[in-house]
C-alpha cells in the first residue's frame, strides 16, 4: 500500500498540509475541536528537527509564532473561537508588522465558550474584523480533506507572498470526520519560500522598503541586520512615526496588497454552474450538504448549481457577481446568521434574489434542510 494514502481526520490533513508546505515551528494551546492539529504537530515536528511549543494561552501562542516567523521559519498555530478571540490583538500586530503566519480556527459554536464540541461557521466576520483598525485579511476554508490539505499549503504560500497572516477557517465537522487523504509528491504543489534580502551584513537593510514589485524582502531577525519591528505606524526602518503621509501610505499599502490581488487569492470550485438557473453558494462542511443536494437534483434534470467558496476573505465579489448574474435565485448555505449571505447580497445586482439557508443549533445542516429551504423559495411550501 502506498503510505502516502491515509485515512485521517480533517485536523490531521491540515497538519500534513502544513508540514508539506515547510512548517517547522508550531506554538499552540490545545482547544476542542482543533486539538488534533497540535497533537499531530507535537509528534511530527521533533522528528524533522522542528519545534513544537505548548504555550500558556492563545495570546502567547500567536506571539510565539510571530517571533519565530521573523527569524525565518514557516509557522502556524491552531485554535477555536475562544482562543481566536484572544489572538485578535496579536493578529493585528502581525498585519501591521507584515509577519507571514498561518492561524487555524476550527470553528465551534459561539459566542464565548459556546458549544465546544459542535459545528458552527460563526467566526467568518470575526476573521475579517476581529482585530481593530482598517486592514485587509486573508481567510480560506475547505470542505474535504484533500482540499483542507491543498488550502493549508496555499495559506503558507499566500502568507509568504504577501507577508501577511492567513486565517484558515475550518469547522468541527471537517476537522473531526475521517476520510481518505492522498499526500501529493514533493513538488506537486508549488511552494512559495521566504523572500530574503540580498543586502549583506554590515550594509543598511530597510525591512519596510518595498522592491519594485511591491514585495518586502525579509532578513532573519537576530541575524546579520539590526532593525525594529513595531505595532505602531512605522517608516522603512521599522521605527515609529506619526508622519501623516507615511501613516496614510502604510495603511493604504496594508489594504491594497491584499485587495488588489483578490483575483489571485480567490479560490473556489464550481459544480454544474454553466447552465444553472438556481445557485447554491456554500463553503466548509455546509458545502458537503449543498453538493449532495445538487448532485441529487441534477440527476432529476433540475438546473441547480453550486459555487463552493474556499477564499472567504478577501471576498470574491466579482466572481460571485458574474456567476450569479443570470440566476433566478441564489441560496447561501452556511451555519451562522448570514455572514457570507450579507457579502453575496452586496455582490449581486439584485440582493432580493439572495436567500439564506442556515442552521445555528450545533448540528450540520442536512440535505433535507436545504431541500426544504429551496421548496419555500420556489413558493412550493415545505
Amino acid at each position, binding site marked *: *500500500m502506498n503510505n502516502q*494514502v491515509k*485515512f485521517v481526520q480533517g485536523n490531521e490533513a491540515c497538519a500534513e498540509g502544513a508540514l508539506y508546505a515547510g512548517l517547522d515551528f508550531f506554538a499552540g494551546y490545545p482547544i476542542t475541536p482543533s486539538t488534533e492539529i497540535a497533537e499531530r504537530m507535537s509528534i511530527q515536528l521533533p522528528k524533522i528537527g522542528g519545534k513544537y511549543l505548548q504555550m500558556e494561552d492563545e495570546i502567547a501562542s500567536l506571539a510565539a509564532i510571530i517571533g519565530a516567523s521573523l527569524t525565518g521559519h514557516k509557522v502556524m498555530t491552531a485554535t477555536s473561537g475562544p482562543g481566536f478571540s484572544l489572538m485578535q490583538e496579536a493578529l493585528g500586530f502581525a498585519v501591521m508588522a507584515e509577519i507571514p503566519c498561518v492561524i487555524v480556527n476550527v470553528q465551534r459554536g459561539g459566542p464565548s465558550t459556546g458549544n465546544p*464540541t459542535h459545528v458552527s461557521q460563526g467566526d467568518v466576520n470575526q476573521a475579517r474584523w476581529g482585530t481593530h483598525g482598517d486592514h485587509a485579511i486573508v481567510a480560506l476554508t475547505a470542505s474535504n480533506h484533500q482540499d483542507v490539505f491543498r488550502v493549508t499549503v496555499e495559506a503558507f504560500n499566500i502568507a509568504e507572498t504577501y507577508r501577511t497572516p492567513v486565517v484558515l477557517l475550518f469547522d*468541527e465537522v471537517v476537522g473531526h*470526520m*475521517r*476520510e481518505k487523504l492522498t499526500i501529493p509528491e514533493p513538488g506537486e504543489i508549488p511552494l512559495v519560500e521566504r523572500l530574503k534580502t540580498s543586502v549583506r551584513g554590515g550594509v543598511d537593510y530597510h525591512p519596510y522598503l518595498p522592491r519594485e514589485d511591491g514585495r518586502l524582502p525579509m532578513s532573519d531577525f537576530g541575524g546579520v541586520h539590526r532593525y525594529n519591528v513595531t505595532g505602531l505606524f512605522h517608516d522603512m526602518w521599522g521605527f515609529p512615526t506619526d508622519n501623516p503621509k507615511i501613516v496614510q501610505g502604510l495603511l493604504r499599502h496594508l489594504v491594497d496588497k491584499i485587495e488588489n490581488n483578490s483575483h489571485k487569492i480567490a479560490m473556489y470550485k464550481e459544480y454544474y454552474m454553466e447552465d444553472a438557473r438556481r445557485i447554491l453558494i456554500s463553503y466548509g462542511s455546509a458545502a*458537503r450538504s449543498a453538493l449532495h443536494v445538487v448532485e441529487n437534483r441534477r440527476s432529476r434534470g433540475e438546473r441547480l448549481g453550486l459555487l463552493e467558496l474556499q477564499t472567504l476573505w478577501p471576498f470574491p465579489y466579482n466572481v460571485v457577481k458574474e456567476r450569479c448574474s443570470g440566476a433566478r435565485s441564489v441560496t447561501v448555505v452556511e451555519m451562522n446568521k448570514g455572514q457570507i449571505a450579507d457579502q453575496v447580497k452586496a455582490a449581486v445586482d439584485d440582493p432580493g434574489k439572495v436567500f439564506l439557508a442556515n442552521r445555528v443549533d450545533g448540528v450540520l445542516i*442536512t440535505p433535507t434542510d436545504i431541500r426544504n429551504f429551496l421548496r419555500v423559495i420556489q413558493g412550493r411550501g415545505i
Partner: protein
Amino acid sequence: MERCRMVFSGSGGQGVITAAIILAEAAALHEGLTALQSQVYGAEARGGATRTDVIIADSEIYFPKVNQPNVLVCLTQEAYTKFSPIIRPGGLLITDTRYVKTFKKVDARQRELNMYETVMEKIGKPIVFNICMLGAVIALTELVGADSIMKTLENRIPESFLDMNREALDLGVEIGAAAKR
C-alpha cells in the same frame, strides 16, 4: 454496490468508535471503496450513549452524517433505547444479548448475538469485544473482508496484541455467519 450507512452505538470505553474507524479505514485503504467516519462528541462520549457514523460506498460521499442507518449496532440498553427508532426500514439491527434486552418491534432484521459472553469465555478479555462485533458486522453485511480488517489492525496496534484481535475477529465472523443462516 448499495451505499451502506451504519451507526455503531454503545457506551464510552466499549470501543465502538475504534471499531468504526477500523472498518472505515479498511474499506477506504484496502478495498478501494469510499468511506467516511464521524462521531458526535460531547458529554455523551463519557459514559452515556456513544454514537459513531460510518458510510461506505463506491462513489463520492458528501453529507457525512447518517440519519437513517441500514446497519445499526447497539451494545448497551441505553443505546438501544435511544437509537433503535432511527433504523431504516428493512435494515439490520445488531444487539448483544449480554447488554441488551430487545423489547420494541422494529421494521428491521433483528440479530441478537451472544458476542460479549463468547469473547469472555473464549478469550477472557473484554478489550476485544469491539473487534468481535466488527467480525459479526462484516460477516452479516459482506462489506469488507476480514483480511482488510487485519491489515488495518496491523498498522494500528502493537504486534503482541494481533493474535488476540485475530481470534476475536474470527469469533465474530463465526457468530455473524451463523446468524445469517
